[in-house]
């Protein structure tokens, strides 16, 4: 069960990260680099992609609550770094990005760490 919950946490977090990063850069550019907290709250309501990011974060959050019930915190949080492995694979497969040695080594280190956590 903990691996299913971990997968939900990781996948929804990846989606939220991508959407947030994309929308916040656009928002900041539109405002000449300034993006006060009040405007961020307004942007969450006004921008559908940012709202979708929040929904993904909510799903990730509830899955995380369930995860910390069945697994130690020292497993749940480090294992959620699986997002970096998925993001690297997505960048290569979907976006056809060039993955340099450093990034590939980093993703492999994270994957190795997760495998070690699961033992």
């Amino acid at each position, binding site marked *: *069960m903990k691996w299913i*919950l971990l997968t939900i946490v990781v996948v929804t977090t990846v989606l939220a*990260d991508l959407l*947030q*990063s994309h929308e*916040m*850069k*656009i*928002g*900041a*550019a539109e405002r000449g*680099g300034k*993006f006060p*907290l009040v405007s*961020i*709250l307004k942007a969450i309501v006004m921008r559908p992609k940012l709202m979708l990011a929040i929904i993904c*974060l909510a799903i990730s*959050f*509830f899955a*995380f*609550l*369930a995860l*910390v*019930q*069945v697994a*130690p*915190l*020292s*497993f*749940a*949080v*480090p*294992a959620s*770094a699986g997002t*970096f492995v998925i*993001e*690297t694979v997505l*960048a290569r497969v979907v976006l056809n*990005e060039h993955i*340099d040695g*450093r*990034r590939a*080594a*980093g*993703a*492999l*280190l*994270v*994957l*190795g*760490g*997760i495998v*070690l*956590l699961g*033992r």
Partner: protein
Amino acid sequence: MGLSARYYWLMASTEIRQKRGAGMVGLLLMVIFLKPFSNLFLAWGMKELPSGVSMNPLFYVKAMFVPLVALGILMQVFWLLFRMKLLSLADLSFVLPVTAVGYVLTTVLGRIFLHEQVSTERWIAVLMIFLGTALVGSTRHIKTQ
């Protein structure tokens, strides 16, 4: 670790100098520390509830009213807002490696406050994840607009 710490500081101080602000330092510290502590309070609060995963969504809605869980949620909300603010000022390739130290902090907090047994194997795994995250995040794979 010493090398990583120096690398971290170099990267963080360079970015901070570029942004020229004590506010940026405060924002960065909030983003680094809020998450591990919010995770601690969430886990602490959830341990007070009956163990096992519930398929009833109401269980998790009720869980949100457990004081420690509520405190963890409040901290997560602030973390989310501060992180969004940080993402509007700095690249994800800067934010991710610097905040990766949170994995180590969370494990330390779990060991101290939740008395979790953290084996040598698990510490090695956490360090591998921390270093791996720092490496992945430090590559400039996301272009600034």
